[in-house]
């Protein structure tokens, strides 16, 4: 492959204005699929099912089968549309998008074309430094997902060079909402971060609505990023590329940045951008060209004759609107004030994707400081070590219980970390682990004093130093006592007692 030239990012921005557009697919977590009564693998309950076990005749596109709309999926789509500030269509209908692909059972996708369920919205997106952008939403429409291909032979499961492919239709028909932004102007050098923050906001909204598991690593949330550049002062939009397969928050930011640099290098040399689909490669941090837009994109949309229009009742839409949770940006502002976090502390929580966990931990009785400390500290460390999400390691209730045990003096920080490891290992609640492992702090001064006296007797030189006023020498005794107590003692209390006993020893 020819070496791709990239322009320096700052220089690219001097010459060109980046314009981005984002398409986000959200898999809904309904019990069943969009048009079929088969279990939905995007619901936690059915995640990871064996191949072709979650299929009905509809999912396989068997001759004679017919789609029927999942009413719950429509309600969740409407809620999402409302949360995106969209208008809900008075009447909405489905259309067939015709193209052949082996993961598409019917060789057409049931989607929405001219009458989407939701349109004309706006989402407030906050950058890391607290500045906010209004991202304009063109539409949000309902559609079905395709099956999954596994490429066999050739290198690393890639499609190129594969000898054959295997098809699993479990994912075929999973309900999707596709959210399409209008072109986003004015983000300038922040465009890559805005793209990431936007997808993160969509995730927060989906989670707060409870409509999706919203896990990018599982493909519950997928993003295609459109990028174009126009020379400073120009009116006309440049030719855009659509980068697909951008499936982590980090790669969204990197992919947009990469496309800006790549396109700028081409344009600065007088070259032209090809309107095409590009693929993001996480490993190399680059995009590569896919298929150019062509006649093959003639999808021959027409109204789906097997389905009838969806006409949401204004009463039901009003009910769903009334039930909407607070918008993420507004919620963040409120929580930051309520918790009295500094900018840095709050960003730590938000960037770690732990806002909901911290909030739930506080709701379960922990202090804001303790909740933040455990989630962004020890749990994040454990998550990084095992390459998973902190949120998946422990429940807010357990973290709150742990904080309460520390607060009550039952556990020291060090003991609490041990207990937390037990929680993560699934040994039970913090209290159960404390009981089972006998990890509670020894708060019986008698036992401590006995241990201290013994340690002091064993180290007469240290005792002498303490009595000479060299208080820091007490550390050696404290260490010995803590060791003797197997760590189950409050170090501060031990220190107090050591000084007391040293003074008393004659």
């Amino acid at each position: 492959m020819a070496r791709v030239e990239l322009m320096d990012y700052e220089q690219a921005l001097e010459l060109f204005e980046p314009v981005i557009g984002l398409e986000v697919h959200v898999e809904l977590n309904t019990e069943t699929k969009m048009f079929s009564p088969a279990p939905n693998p995007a619901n936690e309950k059915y995640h990871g099912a064996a191949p072709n076990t979650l299929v009905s005749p509809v999912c396989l596109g068997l001759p004679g089968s017919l789609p029927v709309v999942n009413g719950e999926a429509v309600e969740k789509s409407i809620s999402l549309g409302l949360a995106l500030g969209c208008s809900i269509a008075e009447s909405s209908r489905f259309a067939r998008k015709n193209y052949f692909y082996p993961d598409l059972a019917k060789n057409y996708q049931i989607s929405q074309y001219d009458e989407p369920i939701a349109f004309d919205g706006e989402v407030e997106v906050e950058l890391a430094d607290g500045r906010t952008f209004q991202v304009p939403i063109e539409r949000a429409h309902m559609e079905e997902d395709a099956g999954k291909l596994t490429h066999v032979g050739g290198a690393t499961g890639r499609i190129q060079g594969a000898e054959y492919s295997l098809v699993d239709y479990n994912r075929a028909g999973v309900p999707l909402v596709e959210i399409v932004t209008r072109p986003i102007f004015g983000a300038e050098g922040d465009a890559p971060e805005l793209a990431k923050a936007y997808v993160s906001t969509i995730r927060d909204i989906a989670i707060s609505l409870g409509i999706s598991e919203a896990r990018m690593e599982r493909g519950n949330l997928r993003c295609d990023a459109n990028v174009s550049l126009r020379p400073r002062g120009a009116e006309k939009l440049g030719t855009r590329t659509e980068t697909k397969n951008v499936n982590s928050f980090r790669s969204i930011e990197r992919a947009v940045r990469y496309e800006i640099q790549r396109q700028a290098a081409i344009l600065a040399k007088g070259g032209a951008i090809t309107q095409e689909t590009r693929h993001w490669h996480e490993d190399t941090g680059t995009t590569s060209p896919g298929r150019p837009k062509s006649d093959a994109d003639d999808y021959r949309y027409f109204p789906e004759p097997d389905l009838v229009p969806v006409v949401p009742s204004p009463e039901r839409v009003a009910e769903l609107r009334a039930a909407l949770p607070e918008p993420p940006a507004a919620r963040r502002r409120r929580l930051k004030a309520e918790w009295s976090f500094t900018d840095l502390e709050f960003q730590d929580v938000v960037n770690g994707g732990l806002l909901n966990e911290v909030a739930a931990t506080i709701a379960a009785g922990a202090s804001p400081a303790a909740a933040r400390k455990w989630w962004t500290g020890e749990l994040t460390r454990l998550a990084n070590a095992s390459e998973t999400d902190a949120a998946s390691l422990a429940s807010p209730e357990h973290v709150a219980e742990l904080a309460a045990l520390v607060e009550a003096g039952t556990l020291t920080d060090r003991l609490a970390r041990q207990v937390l490891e037990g929680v993560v290992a699934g040994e039970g609640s913090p209290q159960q682990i404390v009981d089972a492992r006998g990890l509670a702090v020894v708060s019986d001064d008698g036992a401590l004093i006995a241990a201290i006296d013994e340690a002091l007797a064993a180290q007469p030189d240290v005792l002498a130093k303490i009595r000479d006023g060299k208080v820091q020498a007490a550390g050696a005794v404290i260490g010995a006592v803590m060791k003797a107590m197997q760590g189950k003692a409050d170090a501060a209390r031990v220190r107090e007692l050591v000084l007391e006993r040293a003074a008393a020893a004659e």
Partner: protein
Amino acid sequence: MSHSDELIRLSAAELAGRLGRGEVSSVEATQAHLDRIAAVDGAVHAFLHVNAEGALRAAAEVDRARAAGESLGELAGVPIAIKDVLVTEGMPSTSGSKILEGWIPPYDATPVRKVREAGLVPLGKTNMDEFAMGSSTEHSAYGPTHNPWDLDRIPGGSGGGSAASVAAFEAPLALGSDTGGSIRQPAHVTGTVGVKPTYGAVSRYGSIALASSLDQIGPVTRTVLDAALLQDVIAGHDPHDSTSIAEPWPSMAEAVRRADVQGLRIGVVKELDTDGFQTGVRQRFHESLELLERNGAEIVEVEAPNFEHAIAAYYLILPAEASSNLAKFDSVRFGLRVTPQGGGTVEQVMAASREAGFGPEVKRRIILGTYALSAGYYDAYYGSAQKVRTLVQRDFDQAFAKVDVLATPTAPTTAFKLGEKLDDPLAMYLNDIATIPANLAGVPGISLPAGLAPEDGLPVGIQFLAPARQDARLYNVGGALERLLEAEWGGPLLAKAPDLSTHELTATEEGAL
């Protein structure tokens, strides 16, 4: 006449009566029909698949249930033939196409499930034009069906197999599907009864889709009462079909039993009463109307100016929907797979499989439909056709404001010779001129025998159309006319059909050559 020969000539209602009274067993009745199939289907070729074993097993089960005093449906124990467009568990379902040869579906179509639950006995699957595209059954990948009235002639299409099976006394009842006349036109040319119910009256779940907004499943029988009894079994709401009508239906059989045309206003569609129709077809049509008038009906001429555009709209909407519906035949999950020499990519395998698996008429319509939907042509073709659909509906609305039912000849000519129109698609398409408007508007239609054309001695049908959801009106007027005509003829029209045993030898000899 042997006992067995007598059994096969009974109407379904009569046979059901005898079964109910215990005068005959379902196994006997089923065996009689299987024997008949064995005797004449070599010549007629109505069936693509005969499931003798399964039929006898189902019949024995009904006999057992009856002996045990279990409550059974009115038609329990009566054999039925099923058009191959409907998927059937345990029986191959090909829709007349090579691309589905040997495919055994893992589920039953809803109408099939309903007939099984009502205790009817499926005999097998009937021949049809490939994917129901045609008016002659000549587009079947498995060879044409022959008209029992004249084996050199077409039995109509696409459901020629179902119509021929009842006309040849191979089954008292059959299921058909009607997208532009595929139930009614075969009824017309075979001297049988065929009904296309209101769109949505019978579930389409499990019917291999041709054109989703036009397809409707319906009864194919020898008498109007039998059609009504069968519609009562298969109609009704199905949650598997989003376009299925939710409201309950009145009994169609009741409408036949109480048939009375006194005061009934019948509209004759002026645009479909022209010299474009064969003389004998028009003659029998008008004689039927006069008979109804003499018995109290009022005959009124009505206009339907947009019907002349119906065929054009139909031949845009149907191919467009079909091009999409037939995309699923891609050699991945079911059906024929053809790999080009030396292997190929999945794209090439799909294209080669579809090239080998589809017949010329199917390819013609897929290409036509792909064109009608493609960018830049949608508005002019598919979009405009949808507007014509609105205009045809308005013609119906205006007509039904004046009359209770409409009457037309069912098709322009009697059965033509096999091969006669095979190379002229446009001429073939004109067969459906009188039947298509009902599909575009979703209204119900019936075709029943009106007599034999004097010039060729072949059957002629008369069609009645009613407003959507008023299927009972068709059974009323159809039941009344049938009674009046049979009184004039001194028996059913099919009594005049030739004895197939004389033809059987000829056909076999031809086959041997």
